[in-house]
């Protein structure tokens, strides 16, 4: 029997060193890991490497990482670092750090200090958007390209960059399509499935992802998932926790859209591959800085709020769950304001602070989500007098 395509995606999403990456490595390919949504995978790909977005997949063990970082660092960063230190990520030939946040920097710098991967680059991203910061980021993109060229030993020419940009744009376009099918009145994907697809989109080669995604989109386009209950939106910090999404959806709710770093926020930007032929650095700088929806950016809250409000309206959302990992200051602060702004507009909000990946935490989260669903009252659970 032919393996179900969606099941194949879930399997790929559930493993860090997945079979596609193994095949890439066996064929002599090199893999470069990045974590931050501000890293352009087009450049990594054009230089001949496989870009791989680092994830922790709910790993909760952080004994080794805690020797480098502290217990009051973000548990997602500690979980990723642990997997770097314990050998899970030994297939990575290089790392790209950004100043997404200080926890993330701590993760990358300690990882590199302990493991000394062959390639390491620090891509500095401005916190404000203006002409000067765009010039600065353009220069940073140029430096990143040069460092990749130095590592690969060959120049990144305009054609290969345009090709890579075209494929990465196709990946984003497919994810946007998947989200449009997920957000419609009768969703074609559960939140769990959509999260798995998003995770796989940055963990295998674009060509393979496009093959899989096209088949799945064709299979699902005319159908709908079985669901009843409340339509939810999930917002907040880095969440690659498939099990958490599954736990929330086990409670008569379906997550129809999100504003997550490992979610829509990584796929909103549109890049014209042809622009790579004339001014590649400027194009990438503009795409990655202007379309960046991250609470680490200063004076940009209104845009993030509007992005969420539009998604709520577009997806006909009944309630929004905003969450952040403990000690994540940027999302923690943003979420308070977001909660107040949504509530002011009559949109029910559940704000959650959680530890990354903790199984023990799932029960606690489920209690809150269940009460939230009972409060919204779309389900007929007898939860009301």
């Amino acid at each position, binding site marked *: 029997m032919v393996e179900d395509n969606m099941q194949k995606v879930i399997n790929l999403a559930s493993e860090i060193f997945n079979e596609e990456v193994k095949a890439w490595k066996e064929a002599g390919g090199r893999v470069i890991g990045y974590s931050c949504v501000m890293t352009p995978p087009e450049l990594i790909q054009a230089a001949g490497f496989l870009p791989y977005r680092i994830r922790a997949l709910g790993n909760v063990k952080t004994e080794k990482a805690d020797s480098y970082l502290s217990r009051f660092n973000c548990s997602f960063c500690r979980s990723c670092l642990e997997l770097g230190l314990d050998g899970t990520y030994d297939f990575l030939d290089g790392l790209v750090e950004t100043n997404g946040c200080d926890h993330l920097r701590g993760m990358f710098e300690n990882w590199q200090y302990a493991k000394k991967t062959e390639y390491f680059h620090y891509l500095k991203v401005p916190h404000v958007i203006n002409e000067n910061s765009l010039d600065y980021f353009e220069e940073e993109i140029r430096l990143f390209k040069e460092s990749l060229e130095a590592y690969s030993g060959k120049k990144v020419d305009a054609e290969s960059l345009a090709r890579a940009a075209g494929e990465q744009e196709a990946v984003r376009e497919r994810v946007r399509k998947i989200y449009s099918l997920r957000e419609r009145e009768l969703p074609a994907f559960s939140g769990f499935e959509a999260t798995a697809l998003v995770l796989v989109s940055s963990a295998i080669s674009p060509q393979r992802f496009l093959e899989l995604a096209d088949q799945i989109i064709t299979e699902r386009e005319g159908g709908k998932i079985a669901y009843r209950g409340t339509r939810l939106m999930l917002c907040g910090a880095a969440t690659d926790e498939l099990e958490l999404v599954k736990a929330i959806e086990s409670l008569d709710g379906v997550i129809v859209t999100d504003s997550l770093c490992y979610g829509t926020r990584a796929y909103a930007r549109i890049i014209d591959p042809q622009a790579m032929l004339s001014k590649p650095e400027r194009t990438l700088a503009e795409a990655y800085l202007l379309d960046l929806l991250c609470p680490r950016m200063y004076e940009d809250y209104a845009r993030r709020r509007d992005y969420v409000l539009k998604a709520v309206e577009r997806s006909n959302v009944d309630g929004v769950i905003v969450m952040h990992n*403990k000690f994540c200051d940027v999302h923690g602060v943003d979420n308070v304001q977001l909660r107040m702004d949504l509530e002011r507009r009559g949109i029910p909000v559940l704000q959650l*602070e959680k530890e990354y990946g903790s199984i023990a935490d799932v029960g*606690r989260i489920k209690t*809150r989500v269940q009460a939230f669903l*009972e*409060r919204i009252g779309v389900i007929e*659970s007898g*939860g009301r*007098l």
Partner: protein
Amino acid sequence: MGKVMLYGGIDIGSLTAQAVLIDGKRQFSSVHNSSLFLAKSIPVKPNPVDSAKAVMEEIFRENGLEWKDLNYCISTGYGREKIVEEGMANENVSEISCHATGAFSLDPDVRTVIDIGGQDAKVIRIDESGNLVNFVMNDKCAAGTGRFLEVMSRTLGVSLEDLGGVALKARGRVDLSARCSIFAETEVLHFLQRGIDVGSLAAGICRSMAERVMALVRRVGVEKEVMMTGGVAKNVAVKRELERMIGTRMVDSKIDSQLVGAYGAAVLAMKSGRSV
């Protein structure tokens, strides 16, 4: 016991398990005293399913009832889904909705419920129809929960039941600076070694607890009447501190405050069971 139409609520907490049975032939709005329903509370067992089984079997045995007398049952608290899977309840509802329903059914004037159990603290707002309007729960920390009082009473050598009374009788009060249960214990030990009297420390502990809960209260706001439920409601000093901080007297739950969640579950069971 004669022919009854029983509806059950099972509430498994972190320290105790409660079962409440109500007779569907009575209007629940008239249930204002404990003689109108059956209740049982036992210390929890390691497994919530075992706790549910034990507390239900005890309440049945004491009252000459059997499982088959139960018309409809709702589980809440820890392991509430498992209890449904094991066939002991028809459905599960979160403890937040159960406490809201329980408090509202006991007193329809209640708009704010402060429920503090062994590991959770919640502040729940309800509307004039008893619907859940908003709620907030403590984050992953024991500082504003019954566990804090349990740890502190042990440190002071006072029983948990007596802690509130000791605090009320104290001549003075030592304010604690640490909000964390672990560090607060260290701080209390330090004061004990300096010869500070137990009463003043008990008063400081109860105030510290109330302050922690007030942080949650402020997040959802207070509307009168306010009812306190859960085990910590039995601590008179914490309750009085909270009343002082909120600026209003709380209404009495009329039944054992620890039973309000299970009672709410039973009321919801009656509503669901009747519509089945």
